[in-house]
């Protein structure tokens, strides 16, 4: 037992060391990228309108910090709500799919349609049907987020190990027992994977939806702010907004990881 504990603490120390090294590598790559960017702007003497220096972008970010914070918060809220709704709808659809092969075959092509339809083509229609509202941005974002979740969770629900299938059949498990005891726990790592993919898509979806929804509305998400700055050719501010949107993606991705580690660790450890 003491050997096991010793091994456990060694593994913990090892994983901490790995995390520190990973963080160092990520920061080093970012620093190198920023240095290269600065060097290119100075070397070719590029105008600020075409490509500002990193310092100019930082200055613009500080100057517009209130707008960026407010609009970033709105976009983050839109993306988070949309991701949550997509997880609820996606899991429900996947559970239905897992219960009937016929249903899965009949309806899955329509789920693929959600993935293939360009959001810029569907967003104007959504505005006509739902108005310049927060809910329209959410609907558009949910459409973008849904496919990775449905695809992953359906795969998880139908990937029960053969020996577990035999075990359930052996003891005459009902459909409900099969679903709750084995299918859903098996699908949880797949759900986390789908939610991670969708967390990045949710920010993209929210910003693209805001390009359309913001017209004539009191809705000032990051997409709406970027539309205005683009019209005034504020390249440095636009790049600051881009950095904020990247940060939002990282926050959402990190949030999904954190929640999954807090509540679903035992399902993730073993699969």
């Amino acid at each position, binding site marked *: 037992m003491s050997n096991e504990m010793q091994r456990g603490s060694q593994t913990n120390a090892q994983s901490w060391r790995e995390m520190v090294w990973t963080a160092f590598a990520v920061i080093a790559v970012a620093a190198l990228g920023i240095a290269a960017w600065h060097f290119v702007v100075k070397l070719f003497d590029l105008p600020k309108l075409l490509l500002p220096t990193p310092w100019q972008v930082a200055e613009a970010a500080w100057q517009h910090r209130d707008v960026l914070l407010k609009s970033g918060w709105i976009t983050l809220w839109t993306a988070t709500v949309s991701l949550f709704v997509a997880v609820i709808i996606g899991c429900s659809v996947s559970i239905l799919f897992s219960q009937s092969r016929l249903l899965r075959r009949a309806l899955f092509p329509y789920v693929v349609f959600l993935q293939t339809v360009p959001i810029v083509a569907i967003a104007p229609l959504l505005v006509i049907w739902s108005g310049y509202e927060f809910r329209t941005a959410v609907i558009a974002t949910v459409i973008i987020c849904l496919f990775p979740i449905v695809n992953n969770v359906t795969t998880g629900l139908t990937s029960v190990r053969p020996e577990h299938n*035999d075990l*359930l059949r*052996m003891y*005459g498990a009902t459909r409900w027992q*099969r679903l709750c*005891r084995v299918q859903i726990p098996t699908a949880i790592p797949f759900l986390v994977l789908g939610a991670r993919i969708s967390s990045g898509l949710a920010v993209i979806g929210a910003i693209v939806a805001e390009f359309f929804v913001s017209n004539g509305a009191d809705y000032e998400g990051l997409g709406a702010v970027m539309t205005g700055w683009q019209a005034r050719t504020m390249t440095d501010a636009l790049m600051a907004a881009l950095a904020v949107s990247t940060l939002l993606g990282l926050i959402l991705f990190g949030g999904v990881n954190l929640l999954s580690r807090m509540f679903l660790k035992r399902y993730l450890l*073993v699969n």
Partner: protein
Amino acid sequence: MNALPDKIDAGTAVVCRDATVTYPGGVCALDRINLSVRQGERLAFVGPSGCGKTTLLRVIAGLQPLTSGVCQRSNPSQHGSENKQEDAVEKSQYDEAHEEGHPCAADRRSVSTSFVFQQPALLPWTNVLKNVALPLTLGRRRERSSAKELRERALAAIEEVQLTEAATRYPHQLSGGMKMRASIARALVTRPEFLLLDEPFAALDDMLRNQLGRLYLNLWRHHRFTSVLVTHNIAEAIQLSERICVMHRGSIVSEMVNPLSTSKPHEDLRRTNEFAEFFGKVSDGLENAASSNSERASS
């Protein structure tokens, strides 16, 4: 070979008549198997990989549909009432479609049958106690006991396999032998009248294999369940069974009553001349079957 009874009687646990399984693509896994297993008997199927041992075990368990023939299993708990003999028979005629068109007989299967798989097949997201209690909570006829009673029964089964200290551990925290013991506890928790074992010790080292073999024999002496063991290890079959069926290419080519089944303690058996003699006999049975098949193929 023993003559098959026409009708399953009180002393018979399983009867298979012309049981045939042909997989899609024409591969014949079982070829007109005729077999009878007495209640409380320990039977072993030995043979090379792919000879149909596991398929036959799955047929007996009701997990594998037959292409033709019949496999009947009695329910010993119902033998008290004579005129309900027919009700006591569970046929492996899989007429109930279960999941996604795959026919199986799950709903007709008695909970008094348990299966120990080659892999421990523990649910990795839950602890040993809940894994062991799982069979008590499954099925339409699941135990209507309180959570406390279920827990006590599961703990009793865990104690039988000497795993009490690991009851709250998760499968990934267990060694291979502990996982297999947990799997055996799960099989025993329903107090089965049939215990079907599919190469349960194949992935374990020799010492652990012997240890679990002794545990299995002790459990059998205590519970007297009917047991069918699949193994490709002749020594294991001799140590753990009363009768050995040698299988080859989907057929039972010979049946041998094990003269050593109760003569000596498990650990001493391997050192005897009788063991070596019987080992040779079973081994010859396997080799004869293989050579006659290759002769047939060459002619």
